[in-house]
Each structure stands twice: as structure tokens, then as C-alpha cells.
């Protein structure tokens, strides 16, 4: 078992192996994303019953919630990849971390924008300084910070490490930020507006949501892999296997 793990680790560290194995994965990931998205959206938009309070505006949930969940876990993945790079100096991990940042930020932005749009019909306003919303906004800023720092540092290796350190510091802070924001909001304001928190959801609503969540993760993997493959090609451009690839 241990041996196998070590072998896997070394393989993961090999850019060539990564490129070749993902070449085989990509068609599957594309297929899964398309099918999942089609099924989820058809079920969600056409077959799920309208919410008794919010009417059809609740159908935004099928993008809002998956995006929000993903944005949070993507940051964690970025930080973990960064830590792997810092500790074991595995270049692949740095490239993965750099690829995650813009994708995670995009999903964060989607969650924020769809949430804001959803707020208008539900709460009558685009934005309130609710705890969830605020902490999501801060998460977006954290993403931007990591990206800006990576861009600003000229030396490649230093920029990877700086990004990793910042995402780790951010990771430690996310729970603190989240907790403090929640605490702050409940203190200042009696909960006038709340995200709908119904204990149980109708299965016709729930199933498409679950499908969409899984699909979003698959799609995220696809995007990160696409970006990482570019990094691999760029960094290995002088190696023979990339040259062979270019010849063909």
C-alpha cells in the first residue's frame, strides 16, 4: 500500500505522465460535464416544482449553490497544492495551484453574482451585509490577492512560493473570517433576511441540485486540468517529448 502511494506520488510529480494520462481523461470529463449539466438543468428548470414562497426564482439555486460550494473547496485545494509544493518542492503542485486560482475565483464570482440577482426578487435588494454574503465577498478578495501576488513577482519559483504561503495563511483565516462575520451580523442585526434554510427539500428539487453539484466539481476538474496542461507544456517545452508532440 505504502509502496503504491509512493509510486503514485512520483507519477503525479511527473509532468509527462500527467499530460498523457489527462489526454485520456479529458473526453470523459467533457462527456460527464455535458451530460450532467443537461440532465441537471432539464430536471431543475423544467421538472422541479416551483418554490411555494419564492416561485420560480428559486431555480437559480442550481447554479448558485454548486458555485458557492465549489468556490470554498477550491481555495482549500489551492492551499493544499501550495503546501505540497512548499514541503516537497513538487513543481506539478505549484502549477496546479496556479491553475486553480482563476477558476476558483470565477466560481466565487458566479456565486456572488447569482446570489445578488436572486436577492432582488427575494429580498428586494441586490445586496445586504449578511454574514454569508460578506464572507463570500472576502473569499473573492482572497482569491484576487493570491492571483495579484503571483502576477507581481517576476521570478517564477518565488511567485509560486509566495502564492502558496498566502493561500495557506488565507486558509487558516477563512474559518476565523467566517466565524467572526457570522457573529458580527447576528449581533448587529436581528435576522431580518436569511438565506432560505429549509430543513428538508422536496426530492424533485434536491436531486437536480445534487446532480449539478457533482457536475460542477467534474467541470472544475476539467478546467484545472486544461490550465495545468498548458503550464506543463510551457515548462517542458525544451524536453524531447514536447518537441515530439510539436512535430506531429
Amino acid at each position, binding site marked *: 500500500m505504502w509502496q503504491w502511494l509512493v509510486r503514485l506520488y512520483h507519477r503525479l510529480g511527473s509532468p509527462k505522465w500527467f499530460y498523457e494520462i489527462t489526454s485520456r481523461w479529458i473526453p470523459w470529463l467533457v462527456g460527464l460535464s455535458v451530460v450532467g449539466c443537461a440532465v441537471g438543468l432539464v430536471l431543475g428548470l423544467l421538472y422541479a416544482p416551483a418554490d411555494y414562497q419564492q416561485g420560480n426564482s428559486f431555480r437559480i439555486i442550481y447554479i448558485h449553490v454548486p458555485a458557492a460550494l465549489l468556490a470554498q473547496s477550491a481555495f482549500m485545494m489551492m492551499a493544499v497544492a501550495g503546501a505540497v509544493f512548499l514541503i516537497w518542492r513538487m513543481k506539478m503542485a505549484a502549477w496546479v495551484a496556479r491553475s486553480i486560482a482563476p477558476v476558483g475565483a470565477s466560481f466565487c464570482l458566479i456565486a456572488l453574482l447569482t446570489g445578488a440577482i436572486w436577492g432582488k426578487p427575494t429580498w428586494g435588494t441586490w445586496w445586504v451585509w449578511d454574514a454569508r454574503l460578506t464572507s463570500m465577498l472576502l473569499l473573492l478578495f482572497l482569491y484576487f490577492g493570491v492571483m495579484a501576488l503571483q502576477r507581481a513577482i517576476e521570478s517564477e519559483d518565488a511567485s509560486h512560493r509566495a502564492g502558496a504561503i498566502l493561500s495557506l495563511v488565507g486558509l487558516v483565516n477563512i474559518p476565523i473570517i467566517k466565524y467572526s462575520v457570522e457573529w458580527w451580523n447576528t449581533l448587529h442585526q436581528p435576522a431580518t433576511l436569511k438565506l432560505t434554510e429549509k430543513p428538508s427539500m422536496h426530492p424533485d428539487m434536491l436531486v437536480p441540485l445534487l446532480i449539478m453539484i457533482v457536475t460542477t466539481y467534474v467541470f472544475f476538474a476539467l478546467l484545472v486540468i486544461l490550465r495545468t496542461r498548458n503550464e506543463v*507544456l510551457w515548462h517542458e517545452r525544451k524536453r524531447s517529448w514536447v518537441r515530439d508532440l*510539436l512535430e506531429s
Partner: protein
Amino acid sequence: MEFNSFAEFLAMGRHGLYVWLSYGITAVIVVINVILPMMQRRRFLKEQRQRMRRERRNQTGEKQHASST
């Protein structure tokens, strides 16, 4: 099926604007995210192929130069 007609589907019971705006924005961001790495890849391949062609030309040029002198 929750909707009886396509128009009703579009209207989303008065919330059409919000729902379709959300889905539209999401679609745009997703498409950008798909297209950017693909464009990047295409640019990379083009540049590298050019570079390799240039290098090869230089090499053969040098060889010819060497043989002529």
C-alpha cells in the same frame, strides 16, 4: 413538466429576468473559462512550432556555411 408552454418557461412566473440573467452571466463566465486555456494552448503551439522551424533553419544555414568555408 412544470411549464405548459415555451413562453411560460421563458417568463418563469415573473422571475424570468432574474433567472435568465443568472444563467446568462454564468454561461458567459463558464465559456470564458473554457476558451481562455484553449486559446492559450493554441498560441503556445503556434509559437513553439515557429521557434522550432526557425531553429532548424538556423542550424542548416550554419552547416551550409561551415561546409562552404
